[in-house]
């Protein structure tokens, strides 16, 4: 009987220990008082925001209003982030890789304002698409068509979840169109399609986001990765993985919109959320973006001074395809999904 009691005591003790553990319930930062902005962003935005933009804005707001501002954020592929917001995550601001995702949020009733009417059409920064290869460029990759060579293993994010993947497809396809147009005066769509098909045959892995793709490349897998130039430059800076950046002859500049998720912003937070969004176009924030190798959209002088940027012979933008309204159905769905992926 005594034995049983000891055991019962031990059991109670274990339960008590667990209960104690449960008592140190993590404090929710939102409940600690003060202002908290929840931001969902596409994968490669993380570093510049967390290391520069958040702290600088918090300091500025504190100075001007005497209040502390905290940030909670989550980063994933742009399409993933958009789907999360559509499912109801408490995002107040979203920075997306592609304008199409902002349009999806508007269609879902989450955005009521018209970001296209703002001075920069909602675009906070931009960056061209480049190819990352291993040090010494052993596979001899100098432009997109070289990726189609047999034996080249490519890491390419998944266009289902990643906006960067969609930019990359537009970069390859558009690059061939732009080059052929320059040469013969007529864009060669058949050749562009062929190149995209051949490159896609070499894709060995499709991670969920551009940042995930970079990690995969860093762990030693694959010969080449098509990604945002800024992520390549950050990788070079980190010096962990010996690699080189190949700037294609013609490539696209991806443009990233920042939007307020009006549906989730309460009246009390409206001011700080709007202020933060505006802050993204301030000289200070734009300088921070350039420091993290994005191109500024407000001040071209900042871009001229940033010597790390590669030289692009024939840059083009989404307007080349007639905007996302045309690019998505025609290229991503019409060309990529129907004629490249389903082949």
């Amino acid at each position, binding site marked *: 009987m005594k034995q*049983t009691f000891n*055991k019962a005591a031990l*059991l109670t003790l*274990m339960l008590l220990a*667990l209960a104690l*553990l*449960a008592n*140190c*319930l*993590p404090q*929710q*930062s*939102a409940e600690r008082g003060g202002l908290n902005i*929840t931001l969902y962003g596409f*994968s490669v935005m*993380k570093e510049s925001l967390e290391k520069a933009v958040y702290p600088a804005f918090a300091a500025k707001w504190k100075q001007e209003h005497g209040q502390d501002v905290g940030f*909670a*954020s*989550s*980063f*994933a592929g742009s399409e993933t982030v958009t789907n*999360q917001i559509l*499912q*109801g*995550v*408490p995002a107040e601001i979203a920075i997306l890789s592609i304008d199409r995702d902002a349009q999806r949020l508007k269609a879902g009733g989450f955005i009521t304002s018209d970001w296209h009417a703002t001075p920069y059409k909602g675009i906070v920064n931009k960056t061209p698409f480049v190819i990352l290869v291993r040090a010494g460029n052993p596979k001899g990759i100098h432009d997109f068509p070289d990726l189609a060579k047999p034996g080249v293993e490519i890491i390419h994010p998944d266009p289902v979840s990643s906006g960067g993947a969609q930019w990359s497809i537009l970069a390859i396809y558009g690059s061939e169109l732009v080059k052929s147009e320059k040469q013969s005066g007529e864009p060669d769509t058949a050749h562009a399609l062929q190149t995209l098909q051949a490159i896609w045959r070499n894709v060995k892995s499709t991670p*969920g*986001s551009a*940042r*995930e793709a*970079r*990690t995969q490349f*860093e*762990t030693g897998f694959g010969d080449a990765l098509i990604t945002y130039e800024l992520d390549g430059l950050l990788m070079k800076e*980190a010096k*962990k993985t010996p690699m080189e950046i190949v700037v294609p002859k013609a490539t696209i500049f991806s443009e990233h919109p920042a939007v307020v998720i009006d549906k989730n912003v309460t009246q009390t937070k409206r001011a700080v959320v709007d202020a933060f969004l505006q802050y993204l176009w301030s000289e200070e924030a734009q300088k921070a973006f350039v420091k993290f190798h994005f191109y500024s959209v407000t001040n071209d002088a900042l871009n001229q001074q940033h010597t790390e940027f590669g030289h692009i012979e024939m840059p083009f933008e989404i307007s080349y395809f007639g905007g996302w309204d045309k690019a998505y159905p025609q290229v991503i769905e019409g060309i990529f999904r129907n004629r490249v992926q389903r082949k």
Partner: protein
Amino acid sequence: MRSVLGLRFPVLDMSSVIPTMRHVRGFDVARPLSIWMLIFMMMPLVFLPLASIFIFGTSSGLGNFWTALTAPAAVFALKLSMVTSFWATTFNVLFGLFAAYVLSRYNFLGRNALIVTISLPTAIPTAVAGFALLLLWGPYGTLGRFLRPQGIQVMFTAGAIVLANIFVTFPLAFGVIKPVFDTMSRSLEEASATIGATRWQTFWHVTLPSLRGAIVSGALLTFARAVGEFGSTILVSGNLAGRTQTAPLYIFAKFNEGQIEAANAIAIVLALFSFLIFSVLFFARDWLDVD
């Protein structure tokens, strides 16, 4: 009945049936050979992958390991995992006890269907569990859309993580407790009743003590499984660092950012934690098995 790792399986005790093994003269080669073969087979499958977590986690020095471990978001993620798993475990053990009692004591139409349903979450992909919860409780879900105007938001909170944990670990405690109920000798309970004990007294003083082992091992299993849950959590939690990011989500986020050391530091903690839990299950089996 045999107990393996604290889990009770109704296995026939064959030791009395099988005649004593043919005596092997001299050195028994089969013994070291089979032991080494077992270890050799486990090497690439279990040992080396686990070892690489430890190697990578500590490769940049113990100082960095410690910094990674004590990062506020990491500490928060571990705490959140522990707390949400604790509540899911509490619920599932109580529920498992109740369900096992009802399903082994009473026979009724649909009883087998209930047993099968309880076991179902084992086979359902955890991602499906996640979006099933979203479809129900999400702000635009079947039930959630009515709760939203009332200001009740279940998804994307710690509560959602508990719900997901409950769903995926639903059958574990039940699965351990029910067989004990099934095989429990009713004579003690009957004796207790004949000397005038109420149903509640009989349950508290007679039935419950003999279930102690099953309850503890059920709880530990549930807890261990809940702490490691990923697939459903990533869908229902919102994955906000420092708010709704559990330890497995933190590991995934850090890995994706390329901060493999930081990811590994937490992975080491989780690996040691499960090691601890299963050691308790294994070494305390004598204590847990008192009949």
